[in-house]
């Protein structure tokens, strides 16, 4: 392919990404890393699990992103009485020209961006209905399969402090999320800015910075960024080192981890690293990109042992020690 064309593609990616980010930044104060990672996730076609205490603007963030991308946005508030049909849709009896027939009423999943709020409050049955949709990007109701249009992203949230009456997501389903991002409490200045922005008479106006097609195109651009064997080895070593007994696994892994990350984690890291490389202005993936993306891609895939849970070990620290050890080897 022509060099100029390629350069133009990359430049277009960077430009579009920057614009989306800026647009989102008009409404959302701070959380730049969260916005960046969410956008990377979206570009890579992955779903994100946002974890944070209530009131940090998780819903606002997703809403803003959806607006900036001119994508159809739906929100589901997960509660314990939510049924699968409330998520995916159901058959209803309708009358059409005097004839009664069942017709499919699509659920909220039929959108481009779905915000699954407090996903851990719904029953496992309802969770699995959503998660099947996330994986397959289609819904089957009454033996009839209905495709969900692309792009389709799920941004789920969960509250880390309320555990009563919740149904933690099983490991197999957690694995379907591209990233798990922790939304932190804003600092003082951000707090002040938030108050300024949200207590004013006028809210900032948001305009679409990109479309769904742009997102799909950006995803294609990302997938073509090359990676050297040396860097690929680094990635594989990190993922394999999350398993106890591995030669590169640090002591903490052997002590606190029951199960490590799957190849899906490596796929997520690779895709995200490619995006990171382009954003850094490079045409190749570097080890720094891998290290940067590893934490958010692995943290929800690391299954702690009883000892790890009892001691309240933070998976992020384990991942950082893995990265450090692999770097030295």
């Amino acid at each position, binding site marked *: 392919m022509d060099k100029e064309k*390629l350069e133009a593609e990359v430049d277009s990616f960077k430009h579009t990404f920057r614009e989306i980010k800026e647009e989102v930044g008009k409404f959302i104060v701070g959380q730049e890393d969260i916005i960046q990672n969410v956008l990377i996730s979206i570009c890579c076609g992955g779903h994100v699990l946002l974890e944070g205490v209530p009131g940090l603007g998780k819903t606002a963030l997703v809403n803003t992103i959806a607006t900036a991308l001119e994508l159809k946005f739906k929100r589901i508030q997960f509660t314990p009485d939510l049924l699968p049909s409330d998520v995916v849709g159901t058959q209803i009896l309708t009358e059409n020209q005097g004839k009664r027939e069942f017709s499919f009423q699509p659920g909220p999943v039929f959108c481009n961006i779905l915000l699954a709020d407090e996903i851990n409050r719904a029953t496992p049955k309802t969770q699995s209905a959503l998660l099947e949709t996330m994986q397959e990007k289609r819904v089957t109701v009454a033996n009839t399969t209905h495709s969900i249009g692309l792009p389709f992203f799920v941004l789920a949230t969960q509250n880390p402090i309320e555990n009563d009456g919740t149904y933690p997501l099983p490991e197999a389903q957690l694995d379907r999320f591209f990233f798990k991002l922790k939304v932190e409490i804003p600092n003082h200045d951000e707090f002040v800015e938030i108050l300024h922005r949200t207590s004013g008479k006028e809210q900032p106006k948001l305009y679409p910075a990109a479309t769904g097609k742009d997102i799909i195109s950006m995803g294609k651009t990302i997938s*073509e960024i*090359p990676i*050297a064997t*040396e860097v690929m080895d680094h990635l594989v070593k990190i993922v394999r080192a999350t398993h106890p007994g591995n030669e590169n696994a640090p002591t903490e892994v052997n002590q606190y981890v029951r199960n490590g990350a799957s190849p899906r984690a490596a796929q997520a890291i690779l895709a995200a690293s490619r995006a990171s490389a382009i954003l850094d202005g490079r*045409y*190749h*993936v*570097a080890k720094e990109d891998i290290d940067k993306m590893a934490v958010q891609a692995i943290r929800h895939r690391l299954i702690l042992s009883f000892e790890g849970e009892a001691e309240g070990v933070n998976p992020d620290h384990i991942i950082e020690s893995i990265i450090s050890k692999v770097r030295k080897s």
Partner: protein
Amino acid sequence: MHTFISKVRRRLNTGIAINSFLLALLIASALIVSLSLYFIIRGHAVETWAFITGGCIALLSWIALWVTKKKNTQQAAIYSDSHFQLKDSIVSSLEFENGSTEQKYKELQYAQTEKKIASIDSSTIPLSISKKLLAGSLASALVATSFAFVPASQAVLDRLQKEKETKAQTEEIQKLVEAEVEKLLEDLSEHEKALIDSDQIRKWAKELKPTAKEREAMLNMARVKQEIQKKIAGLENRKNEALLKAAGLKLKESSNSKAKQAGEAMSQKDFDAVKKSLEKFKLKNDQEKEHAVDDATKELMEQLKKGEQLTPEERKKLMEEFKKKLAEVRELTKRMAAAAQEGNQGEGLEEGAKFDNLPEDFPLDRLMKLMNKHAMDMQEFMDGEMLDGELMELEELMELLEMLEEMDEGLEEMQDEMDEMDARRRLRQRLQELRKRLGSGMGKQQGQKQGKGLRLNMPGGKKPGTGTDNSRRNQKDEDIDNKNHSKIKGQQGKGPVQKKIEAADSGTGTSHLKGSAQQRDYEHQMSSYLNRDDIPEDMKQAMRQYYKDIHATEQAK
């Protein structure tokens, strides 16, 4: 980019080379220091091979370390990316360049990398020379080098010099002994040659192998002297000589002049003179003067042997001559047999004993007894035949003649025995001379300076050429104490008598310092004894202590 990587690689490998060199230098220096200490503690100077070995090890270590540690292109690329924070740009470019699958962004990435490295100076890469290693290796190299200037201790130098001298001395001694042995073998008479194995004597010289070790040299010498002594002991002929002397003394009492003469020669153990004197007792001899018989008698004996008839006068003359001869012989043999009988050392004669069946160790005794018996038989025969006063018949005369001729055989046997005794004595003398010269300095006889020669000196003492084997000390310079305080000194009046009464011509040579020569010989024998391996150590120690105590007692007196 490849140029850049090459530069980086060169830079890295230069640092590795320097560090490897320093490490190799440290290793080699440590080795040299260890070897040097081994020499220095023992008092030696450090030998050149230690430094050469260290140098070779340094070189080999350096090469080995450099080869194993040096960076290749890939490693240089990884280092460059890390050091210049290029985020794996070079590594990726290298791989994409060689990749078989087409990478869409390959060219862009390559160009980007080239742009990045265009402004980078590879010489900014530090050589990473470890300061500790540098200091350590330089310090140890300095220490190792300084050991090259440490000389050997004086004691070691002296020892080495001593060893050199000992080696040279023993070589010289061997040559001298070989020459002496050849000269001895050349001068041997036929009788002497029969008594000795020339190969064995030559072997003695070979046993004095050149050696740098004094103890070994002394042991060799002591061994050879023992061998010589053994041989001398084997040549001893005391019994026969004592008997000869005793017979001589008996014969000297005789009124017969010939017997007296023979007795004189025998008592002096002048074997040659004895031979000559015995010749006179023979019936037949080749000497012109002092013939056993005159010509007329000779003629008659010839006629008798031929079986010719003799006139009564002729028979009478023959009888008288035979009687005279018998009387002479009888006088000789009677006195010799008396001496043999008095000595009572030999065995008695068996029936039918002959002259040709003499025992090896004490032939003279038997010979004398045999001769006497034969003479007695002759006398008895003659007395029997002349009992009635008549003349003896021809057959009787013939028988008597045969008996007299048989007596001649005995006399010849005795003459041969004198030759053998003479040969033994001469050989003993030669061997004793050789043995003495081994101990007391062959060098003097070879015209060398005093003090040099076969005697191996203990360390210390006077330097070669300045010492003396003379007990008179006129030199003013001091002797160096060689710590050899074990003196061999006998108790006055208690030891063996050192004086020996010998005839001048039977001694080992004239010496105006007989006593001191004997003392030195005694000392040397004792020293050889103490150095023998077959003597138990406690015995040697006891002997040393004994003489020390004696010396202490004498000092107290």
